[in-house]
Structure formats: structure tokens, C-alpha cells
């Protein structure tokens, strides 16, 4: 009976065996391959890469399979691998103006150079269950267009008229911070905040972004532009004296154009909120850009009145791997502390009863 505390080791082993069994499921069905996950559950893979901050489709797919489709668990597995990788250096900033675009839309202009390009979007699909996907029917080849010239960014169009604030320049010699290598400190500069948001939980950022739309820190946003496509990653190699290409990654970028700001010294201008996410995730990029703008509240001399504007609140709670760990740690044994509380409650109840009985005696005596 008391020996229940013995046997932890065997219990863990058995639990892991059962987990492996449940993960595999019915053995008469073929096991799902990593390639299938990469190809057919691509957006799940994208989310895992984005929130794990590691761009590797195969490893992310492996994590998804290993986690039985639990996204946060998959993100966690991939992050724990990422953290052991050596850092060779920082890439050059990616140039999204040179993106090979697959989707590009703007809500601020009816038409614009480069056009509106819907790309592979769920928008305008009717969310009716599709029985044809029960089987493996033939799928028509999509219409394709030869990639043309680089497509101008909407923010650059506004910028050329001076209607929007600058893209933000860092002071000379500024080394971008690395959230995963330096302890966090508040107040946090925008480069680090954006890093934190880029790996922040999609659901949490979505809810915060939503709250700003409902009045908890309104920013009057317009989607200047969302673009999804491939960009080149380049690394400057000092020995060579020029940047070499490391490869191509797919990213989603959102430039939010927000309510303008002006002063005696500056003409009124729109302000920016920025979102950039690995893979294809419009929801995350849009949420990120709304929250980014909300977090710049102080910069514009506005008062912090809503959760989404509060750096410490947003950044400290955006990381789902941290959050899930700490919430779920409550299932670890706490009986030592609970014993301490139990003793205290018993003592307080005794005190209470003694006091009550004492009062009763006093009353009787008075009567």
C-alpha cells in the first residue's frame, strides 16, 4: 500500500510503451510517412517550424508524428533539438521585396503594381465537408504563371509619398539580440519583441490581436499587405568578402498600416505593425503585426490601458512551451507542500472550534 511510491521507473517504462503503441495505432494500417506529413499536412509542419524557430520541414514533420499531432508537443520536441545546435553566425536580413510571391494581397488598394494574387488560400472556400477527400481522387494541376519581376511592397508605395513612418533603422553597429541566448530584460527593444512574437503561441497572439480590435487598445489597422512566398537566406562570410546563399525559405509577411500620428515637429503619418512567420501562416502573421503595433504604444506617447499593450504581460506569456510546461507541472506530486497546508488548515479549524466552543460557554455563563 505505502509502497505505491516505489516502482516509478517501471511505471514510466510501461507508460512509454503504451504511448508508442497508441501512436502507431492499428498495425493493419500503413504507418504515415514523414514525406506524407510534409506534403499533406504542410500547414501543421509550418506552425511547428515557426513556433520552434527552426526551419526544417522533415524534422518538423517527424516531431508532428512523434507528438501524435499534438502541435505544442511537436514544437517542444523541435525546440529542444534546436537549442543544442551551434550558432555559426547571423544571416543577412532577408529581403521580402525580392520575394518569389505565391500570394500577395492588399486591403488598402483596389489594384496596385504586381496585382492582387490570391494563391493557395482557404479564403472564399465554403467550409463544407468535402466527401471527395474521403478517397484519393485525381486532383487537377493548378494554373501557373511564370514568376515575373520583383513585386513592390505596399509599405514602399506609402513610404515614397512620406505617408507612413520609416521602416525603423537600428543604430549603427547594433547587433540584433537573440532571445534564445540572452536573458530577457524589460523594457525590451522591438527587435527582441518581434523575435518573441514570431515564436509566440498562435492562439495567444490571435486572442490578443482580437482584443485590440474589440477596444482593448485600438489601433485602427488596415492590412497594407500580406505576402507569402520564397526568399533567399544569405550569410556574409568575412573570409570571402561577400554574402553566400544558404538556401530558400518560405515566409509569410504582414505589414499592418495603423492610425496616424503627428506632432508639431512631424507631419501626420501612418504607423506600422509588422509580422513575419516561417512558412504559410497568415493568421499568425496578422496577429503578430497587430500585437507588435499595440506593443509600440509607449513609443507614440499613448497610455498603456490594455493587456495587448503591456510588454511584460504579452512577452512573458506568449511562449506556449513555457506556458504548457508550467501549467502541466501541477500534475507533478506536490504532497509535501500539500501536507504543510493540510496541517495548517487543521490547526486553523481547531482554533476556530475552540473559539466557537469558548463563545458558547461564555454565553451559557451569561445566561
Amino acid at each position, binding site marked *: *500500500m*505505502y*509502497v505505491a*511510491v*516505489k*516502482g*516509478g*521507473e517501471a*511505471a*514510466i517504462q510501461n507508460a512509454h510503451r503504451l504511448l508508442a503503441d497508441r501512436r502507431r495505432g492499428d498495425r493493419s494500417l500503413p504507418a504515415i510517412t514523414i514525406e506524407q506529413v510534409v506534403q499533406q499536412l504542410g500547414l501543421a509542419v509550418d506552425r511547428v517550424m515557426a513556433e520552434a524557430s527552426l526551419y526544417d520541414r*522533415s*524534422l518538423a514533420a*517527424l516531431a508532428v508524428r512523434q507528438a501524435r499531432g499534438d502541435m505544442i508537443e511537436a514544437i*517542444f520536441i523541435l*525546440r*529542444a*533539438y*534546436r*537549442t*543544442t545546435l*551551434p550558432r555559426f553566425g547571423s544571416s543577412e536580413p532577408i529581403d521580402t521585396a525580392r520575394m518569389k510571391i505565391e500570394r500577395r494581397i492588399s486591403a488598402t488598394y483596389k489594384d496596385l503594381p504586381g496585382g492582387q494574387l490570391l494563391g493557395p488560400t482557404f479564403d472564399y472556400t465554403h467550409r463544407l465537408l468535402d466527401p471527395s477527400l474521403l478517397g484519393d481522387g485525381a486532383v487537377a494541376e493548378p494554373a501557373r504563371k511564370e514568376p515575373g519581376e520583383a513585386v513592390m511592397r505596399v509599405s514602399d508605395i506609402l513610404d515614397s509619398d512620406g505617408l507612413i513612418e520609416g521602416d525603423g533603422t537600428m543604430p549603427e553597429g547594433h547587433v540584433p539580440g537573440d532571445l*534564445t*541566448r*540572452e*536573458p*530577457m*530584460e*524589460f*523594457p525590451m527593444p522591438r527587435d527582441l519583441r518581434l523575435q518573441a512574437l514570431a515564436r509566440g503561441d498562435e492562439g495567444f497572439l490571435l486572442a490578443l490581436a482580437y482584443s485590440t480590435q474589440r477596444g482593448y487598445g485600438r489601433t485602427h489597422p488596415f492590412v497594407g499587405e500580406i505576402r507569402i512566398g520564397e526568399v533567399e537566406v544569405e550569410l556574409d562570410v568575412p573570409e570571402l568578402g561577400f554574402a553566400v546563399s544558404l538556401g530558400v525559405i518560405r515566409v509569410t509577411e504582414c505589414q499592418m498600416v495603423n492610425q496616424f500620428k503627428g506632432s508639431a515637429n512631424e507631419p501626420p503619418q501612418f504607423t506600422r505593425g509588422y509580422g513575419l512567420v516561417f512558412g504559410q501562416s497568415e493568421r499568425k502573421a496578422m496577429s503578430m503585426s497587430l500585437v507588435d503595433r499595440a506593443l509600440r504604444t509607449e513609443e507614440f506617447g499613448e497610455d498603456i490601458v490594455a493587456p495587448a499593450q503591456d510588454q*511584460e504581460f504579452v512577452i*512573458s506569456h506568449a511562449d506556449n*512551451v*513555457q506556458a*504548457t*510546461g*508550467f*501549467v*502541466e*507541472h501541477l500534475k*507533478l*506530486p*506536490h*504532497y*509535501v*507542500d500539500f*501536507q*504543510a*497546508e*493540510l*496541517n*495548517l488548515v487543521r490547526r*486553523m479549524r481547531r*482554533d476556530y472550534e475552540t473559539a466557537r466552543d469558548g463563545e458558547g460557554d461564555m454565553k451559557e455563563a451569561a445566561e
Partner: protein
Amino acid sequence: MNDLATYNFAYLDEQTKRMIRRAILKAIAIPGYQVPFASREMPMPYGWGTGGVQVTASILGPDDVLKVIDQGADDTTNAVSIRAFFQKVANVAVTTKTKEATIIQTRHRIPEEPLRESQTLVYQVPIPEPLRFLEPRETETRKMHALEEYGLMHVKLYEDIARNGHIATTYAYPVKVEGRYVMDPSPTPKFDNPKMHRSEALQLFGAGREKRIYAVPPYTQVVSLDFEDHPFEIQKFDRPCALCCAENVYLDEVVLDDRGGRMFVCSDTDHCEDRRCAGHAGPMLAIEEAAE
């Protein structure tokens, strides 16, 4: 993808260990001060001992003997898991004997056996900031520590007394280290607080999620906060351990049946076993043995 599973001794790379060791040295130099460090993502969840594991991984050498306890016991699942982790990634000797260990990683308890100079006790810490529940903002609490502004904590303890007649904090009971920093001893029961005072062993505290390391060097003064007319006191149990008859130890309450049957046994399982080996026997021991 196949060369994926090669990890350094004790999992962390040497650069990371160096960074953590620097934080530890700073923490030792300023007892009770919370040193921010670049906590890494570990292969176990945040809140499950990632801070303690990083500290242990950074100080662990091939000759060390490691003991891991959770709730005072070596055999609780998370202690088993962390011990297995270090066996796997560092191949170090492990033990359940407090006496034999050079490094003891713990969650929620300090062993009953007094620790010695050659030992290091590594605490897993969930919330390192003792002022956190009085002031949620890190920017504010850091200022309060810098200015030694601890009035709020005393007010909280005073309010306890005003409401309940005594201080109603039973674990994570705040202490003052070497007369300067107020420190969270991690959620150990206040029963263990006196063991920290002038302990011969080095005590290191790691909070992974909150990215803080702090320390109590050997022979350092650790005083539990109290008032002259309401002195600090530890929990007392009105009976000895049911298995080894130990008194003045921390006991766990074990529910025996659905008719209110209870037994109280040592929370420190190694201490309990030692005493039983030495021939001490509590009233329930014979029954336990008969059942086995």
C-alpha cells in the same frame, strides 16, 4: 537526420555551461541575488526542473555521484526521470544515499541528514521571485530588491497574523540571506528553512522558465522572516514516523483506507530506510513487511 542524436557530456554544450557557470559564480558572490541567465530549452518541460537540470548539468563532472529527489523521495516519477536523464547523457554514478552523493538535485525538500562541505544541493525553482505575488512586474520587483524595499513582505506577514493569529505561510517561506536579499527558498516546507542556515553545503537554485539562478554559499546566514512577538516556527508532527519511529522529521500523510485510516511516514525515504536498517521500527513496519 541520422547524426541527430549526438549530445555533449551532460547534454549542454560547453559554451552554454560556461555561461551558466558564470551566472553561478556571480550568484555565489552575491548570496540571495537572482542572476538572470540565458536559460536553454531543455528536453523536459518548463516547470519540471529545467533550471535545476541546467545547474546540475553545468557543475557535473564524470566523478560526481548524483542523487535526485522529489518530495524527499528518490523514487517519485520525476526524480526517476531526471536521474535517468543524467545517467543517459553524462553516464555518471547515481545513488539514493544522501551521504554518498556529491550533488543532490531536489524539488520541494532538503534531506534530513545534515549536508557536508563537499556536497552541493541544487534546488528546482518554479517562481524565484519572493515578491512576485505581491508585485507581478519584474521591473518593479528588481527595483524593490535594489532598494532593499521589503516592507511589502512584512505587511503581508503582518496581515496573516491580523487575520489568523499567526503567519499562514507553510511553504516557500521567505528568508533573508546574509542580512541583505530576501529570497524564495523554493517551495520547500518551512520545516526545512532552518537547515539552510549556515549549511556546510553549497546551495544553488535554478529557475529555468524564469531564467534566474541564485545561491547560498556554505556557512551563510539564512533567516526566516518573522516578528519579535511572532517568532518563526516550523511544523511539528504529534507522532513519530510509522515505519522508522523518527521524530523531528517531516512526515507525509498516507491514506490507508476509506474509513479515515492514516499513517504518517518520513518524507525523506533514504533517511527512513537508513533508520530501519539501523533497527528502528515504527508501529506500522511489521504490518508493511507482512503485506509484502
